[in-house]
């Protein structure tokens, strides 16, 4: 089994995100504070000026919601409400109360966003570059796929992408086209086995058939390339599906390392590959 450290992808814009999080209560309550303070000092102020704080705070909150993989539709729509609340003429004292309530609401939404909608997405989680444990796995298995042909690597990419899209019959056919050649050195035999496992699973998935009594798995000598340990178990379902996860990740790695032109397609499927990596 490949030894993959438990990686936490970097958050390159962490400090920017922190400042934007601070900006939400700072701008909204700051605007309300100015709206209260200026009349007390005898300075006349158009209400729209301090209300701008709430609009800016809403925009910060929206940006923080947008960069998360899980979207919070309430936080995303706050600028709309800020414009509706604060652009129309309103009595000054009523507007101060409205602004204070709005600032409290934005702060609650910020806390909710942080605790219920996860961390901001990274370039990897947004599908712009390879990252996390998947990247480590691909780098660790690069040498194992050094001698496969570009055609096989392309077929590997096609199989993975078609599988991700739920086009199981296409994936089965593409796997079959690779398995038909049968002229590969021993070093790539785990890849051939992976194609065989995927073909078996995709054929079953296409016909909505249950797990067969006997099924293909990786051999003991392939274990150094597998993400998940392929240990014999009393739980046949677990063994059966673990073989598929390992096969798909092996095929992904082979495609990434040897078919550069297919990398944009593989990147678009990265979230699914990451899901396979992290799932039990």
């Amino acid at each position: 089994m490949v030894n993959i450290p438990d990686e936490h992808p970097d958050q390159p814009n962490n400090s920017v995100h922190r400042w934007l999080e601070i900006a939400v209560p700072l701008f909204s309550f700051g605007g309300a504070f100015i709206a209260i303070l200026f009349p007390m000092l005898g300075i006349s102020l158009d209400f729209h000026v301090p209300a701008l704080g709430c609009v800016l705070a809403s925009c910060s909150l929206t940006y923080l919601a947008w960069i998360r993989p899980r979207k919070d539709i309430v936080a995303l729509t706050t600028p709309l409400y800020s414009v509706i609340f604060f652009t129309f003429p309103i009595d000054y004292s009523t507007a101060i109360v409205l602004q204070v309530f709005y600032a409290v609401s934005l702060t609650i939404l910020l806390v909710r966003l942080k605790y219920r909608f996860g961390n901001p997405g990274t370039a990897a989680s947004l599908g712009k570059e390879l990252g996390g444990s998947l990247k480590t796995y691909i780098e660790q298995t690069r040498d194992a796929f050094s001698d496969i042909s570009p055609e096989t690597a392309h077929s590997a990419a096609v199989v993975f992408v078609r599988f991700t899209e739920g086009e199981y019959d296409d994936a089965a056919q593409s796997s079959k086209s690779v398995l038909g050649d049968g002229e590969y050195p021993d070093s790539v035999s785990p890849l051939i086995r992976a194609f065989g496992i995927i073909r078996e699973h995709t054929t079953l998935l296409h016909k909505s058939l249950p797990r067969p009594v006997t099924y293909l798995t990786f051999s003991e000598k392939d274990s150094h390339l597998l993400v998940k340990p392929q240990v014999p178990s009393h739980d046949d379902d677990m063994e059966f599906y673990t073989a598929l996860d390992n096969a798909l990740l092996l095929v992904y790695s082979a495609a990434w390392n040897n078919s550069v032109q297919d990398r944009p397609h593989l990147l678009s499927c990265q979230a699914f590959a990451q899901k396979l990596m992290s799932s039990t």
Partner: protein
Amino acid sequence: MKIGNVDVKVSIISIVVFVFFTIFLFLASVFSPEVRSQLIWLIPMLFMLLVIPSALNYMSRSHYADIEPVYDAQAKKIRIKLINEGMVGKPVRVEGVVERVHFKFLNRPQYRVADRSGEISVKMFTSTDEDVKVNDVVEVIGQVIRRYIVAGDPVINCVSIRKIKKS
């Protein structure tokens, strides 16, 4: 209430609204002669508060009844873990346990269904044939969509949810 083969269900919220305005209209007509003179059109309008949701429910449920065999034929049985953004638009069939139920009172139930491989949100835009509760084992047939149409994680737009084993 059954119309043809369709079992029409009015949501609790529609009934609450109807009852609220019935009481409001009754009190208003007792205290105001002007309201009494308008009862000839206010009472039919009041009943429209029940008729319109019932008609919408009938239309959506009869439409779902029409498309269910199509999805039943096309949907492939898969594990929840295999559902991903690349499958948006694909008909799928999953089996799992209902972990949470929301918005049944709106006739727009949302379920969280889990199998051994993962869990997924199942959204239905009309009422269900069966009363599905937490811990029921169900078969869901539907289409993979994004949670907010153009963004968000993949969820299942449910066409049919059936209990396959009692909890």
